[in-house]
């Protein structure tokens, strides 16, 4: 089990790194799917099969499909890739990388210094438990989440319309 965990972890890290560095959005997207699948496996290893399934269905499935649709709709030409490579000079990488590294080190420090026993007994938490907690203790949060989704739908519908009044350019002219 431990071995599986480390394996999938490595895959997730590598795939994610490829996402960040890839030149073409579609390539990045595929790496992202890989990453999500790896994380789903990690979930399974950690004893959360329901979440692993959700990860695959919602993240790797639905959300990624949305991205794909969007890329297809925008119909980005080949110049995007070359443009990207222009942006991605090494000098651009240095600062943010250092910053993220520091943040990473700090987080590691938190994790390491927090608890002497680095491990815990594995115990699977089945969907039933999750369901009871979700509809019991967190019923109000579920309501909020549903409202959020509704708001997301409305917003996406509104923004997705073709003819929005062109405020930005007007302001730019002023």
């Amino acid at each position, binding site marked *: 089990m431990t071995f599986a965990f480390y394996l999938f972890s490595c895959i997730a890290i590598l795939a994610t790194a490829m996402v960040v560095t890839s030149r073409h959005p579609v390539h990045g997207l595929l790496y992202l799917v890989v990453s999500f699948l790896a994380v789903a496996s990690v979930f399974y290893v950690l004893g959360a099969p329901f979440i692993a399934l959700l990860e695959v269905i*919602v*993240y790797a499935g639905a959300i990624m499909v949305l991205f794909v649709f969007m890329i297809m709709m925008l119909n980005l030409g080949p110049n995007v890739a070359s443009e990207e490579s222009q942006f991605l000079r090494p000098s651009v990488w240095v600062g943010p990388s250092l910053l993220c590294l520091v943040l990473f080190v700090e987080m590691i420090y938190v994790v390491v210094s927090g608890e002497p026993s680095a491990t815990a007994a594995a115990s699977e938490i089945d969907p039933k438990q999750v369901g009871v907690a979700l509809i019991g203790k967190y019923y109000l*949060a579920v309501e909020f989440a549903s409202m959020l989704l509704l708001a997301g739908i409305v917003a996406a519908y509104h923004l*997705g319309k073709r003819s*929005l009044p062109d405020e930005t350019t007007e302001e730019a002219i002023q």
Partner: protein
Amino acid sequence: MTVLPVNGGLVLAAGLFAIGLLGVLVRRNLLYTLMCVEIMMNAAGLAFVVAGAKWGQPDGQVFFIFILTVAAAEVAVGLALVNQIYRRFHTLDNDSTSSMRG
């Protein structure tokens, strides 16, 4: 009885988060920015699930579900915005879309 690599899980979450953040900071393409935000949220969810697993409680997973919801809504709205922006500016470079004078 197997032993869970709790620390390993948290370190993985931290790593994914850092990489996602790096992407947000470096990439100028809005699509990439959105993808990297997804990565970061996923990492956060991972941390929740690991913590839940450690204490043997379902709450971590519940929160992953909430994060999932937020991510879904965010992607929907975000992609609609990307669509709109591309239509208006004919580019996805988020530096060139700023009209603020600041």
